[in-house]
């Protein structure tokens, strides 16, 4: 079974996203910020296939986490989608250049998440 991590400081958003992922067959884990996500990533037993990542979070924000992730060859195969309220073209470009594969602007719907996962061949 594929495994996905949802990183967002809002419990509600985490719940909505994990629910969607579980319904399409993912096993899911959750983290409340970038630092937590990084620590979890280091000690997961089975590899991660997908990360859904918020931008604005305490401790370590999404972009910092993303840069750290993409600098580490061990995690090259993980697909990453930003799910965030940052909606400026410059920010989107920044995230894509840092190695995000897709980008969803909040507010989102379930269809939007699924369409984007399909684009990433992650559905």
């Amino acid at each position, binding site marked *: 079974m594929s495994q996905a991590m949802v990183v967002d400081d809002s419990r509600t958003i985490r719940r909505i996203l994990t629910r969607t992922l579980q319904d399409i067959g993912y096993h899911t884990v959750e983290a409340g910020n970038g630092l937590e996500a990084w620590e979890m990533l280091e000690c997961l037993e089975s590899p991660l296939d997908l990360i859904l990542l918020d931008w604005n979070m305490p401790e370590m924000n999404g972009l910092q986490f993303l840069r750290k992730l993409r600098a580490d060859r061990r995690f090259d195969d993980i697909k990453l989608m930003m799910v965030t309220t940052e909606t*400026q*073209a410059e920010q989107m470009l920044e995230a*894509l250049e840092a190695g995000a594969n*897709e980008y969803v602007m909040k507010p989102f719907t379930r*269809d*939007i998440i699924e369409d984007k996962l399909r*684009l990433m061949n992650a559905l």
Partner: protein
Amino acid sequence: MTKAVPRTQDAVDKSASITQENYRFLQQHVYQHSGIVLDEGKHYLLESRLIPIVRDVGLADLNALCHALRGVGQAPLRNRVVEAMTTNETLFFRDKSPFDALRLKLLPELLAAARHRPLRIWSAAASTGQEAYSIAMLLLEQGVQPSQVEILGTDLSEEVLARAREAVYSQLEVNRGLPAPYLVKHFTRKGMSWELQERVRKMVRFQQLDLRSGIRPLGMFDLVFCRNVLIYFDLATKRAILEQIRGVMQPHAYLFLGSAETTLNVDERFLRKVVEGAVLYQSMEARA
């Protein structure tokens, strides 16, 4: 309508009620002007789509609307009702697989076949333009020059075509199905919306066309997208449209239908193929 309506009904309930005779009148009206078959018992659909018009023109209820439609000189109102009853939902790169097939398999072949002239592509129920523009962006990404291709988008509704020409999409619309790298590359942020850049816009021409009318004047195509519109028609209409489409397909041309549509048991002169997970059709006569 069998819904029990309490005595102290408010204006909403009242304006929604419609007699059986008027329901049939609206079915007939929508069919005549668009070919779209409105099934029995779609009262909720009538209500949600037509009550805003009823209110806007200051009528009492749906029955009054029907009365007005029967009068002479009501063409604008008639068009509004038909437009309101058609489903315009669409999204960028809808279903993904047709676009994968185009990019990975069909494009080289089609470009070779159209070597000495522009490649002609038709989005036959273009709605607000996402399908036609998805094709345009994909071709640009594949290194096709705008001068090598003509993309035509047609639709029954002038209203959606006006939006297609404008090419300004809401955040929700660009979120759906559009790869983020395409968004940052081909769109410019405009307030809360996103405007498609002129380079892509200029690759597509939009024109009003009822698929049930003569489509020959459009000329011949190398690739036809006729997706998510045949489902609304009855068998005879589907058959007539598919036959016409065959008539404007080059011998090597391909046709894409929507994921819930097929030529099977409608028009047996199409050959069905699966390419990159996408179902596509070629005309058998041309192949023979």
